[in-house]
């Protein structure tokens, strides 16, 4: 097997958690997730030779994966539709470690494609400027979207009423 391919396989396996998590965040069905996964691998492979370590591996993986997912969704108009969480507020103060994972899933499900990418990149520790670069957005667009998002989350995920003083 070519050295290039071996390196690529190693790199994909080292980042499999990220790639699978992204597919799951955007697609619900197993087949759709598998399809998205294959698209991402193919796009990563196509840009692998030109990558040459210019950016951090993590950043490159996120940039290619998220842009592949967003393009795929726009093209196919087929994704996990944003589900408004209007059935009541989630009480964050009750949350334990596992509940945070559940809460994260709820939040991601409630967001539209680009906002979902913003939140994921924020959770990964990227600054607004880096997020703008990864998603090909302007930094001001990212800031505006974040402010809107924070307000949305504040309204949806309030502390338990009797615990507020």
């Amino acid at each position, binding site marked *: 097997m070519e050295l290039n391919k071996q390196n690529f396989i190693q790199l994909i*396996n080292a980042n499999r958690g990220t790639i*699978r998590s992204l597919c799951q965040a955007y697609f619900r069905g197993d087949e759709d997730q598998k399809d998205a996964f294959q698209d991402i691998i*193919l796009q990563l*492979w196509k840009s692998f030779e030109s990558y040459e370590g210019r950016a951090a591996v993590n950043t490159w993986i996120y940039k290619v994966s998220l842009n592949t997912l967003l393009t795929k969704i726009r093209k196919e108009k087929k994704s996990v539709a944003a589900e408004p969480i209007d059935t009541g507020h989630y009480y*964050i103060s009750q949350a334990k*470690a596992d509940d945070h*994972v559940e809460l994260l899933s709820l939040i991601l499900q409630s967001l539209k494609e680009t906002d979902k990418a913003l939140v994921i990149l924020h959770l990964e520790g990227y600054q607004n400027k880096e997020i703008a670069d990864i998603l090909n957005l302007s930094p001001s667009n990212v800031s505006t979207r974040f402010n809107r998002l924070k307000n949305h989350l504040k309204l949806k995920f309030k502390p338990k009423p009797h615990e507020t003083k």
Partner: protein
Amino acid sequence: MKLNDLKPAWQQRKLSHALSEIDAHEILSIIDSPPVAKKAQLPRLLFNLLLFIAITLVCQGG
């Protein structure tokens, strides 16, 4: 609620998806095979070309 509170949850989610390794053959089968869409393009192109020629001939009244 602060979004930063969910950073460990995202890491946990990634970890849980990293448990099983991806088979090298699976990756190779993806990167070595041309996309299905491209494979299907040639017959469609030929069909459209033949159709165009046929229509052109008919419309010339020959």
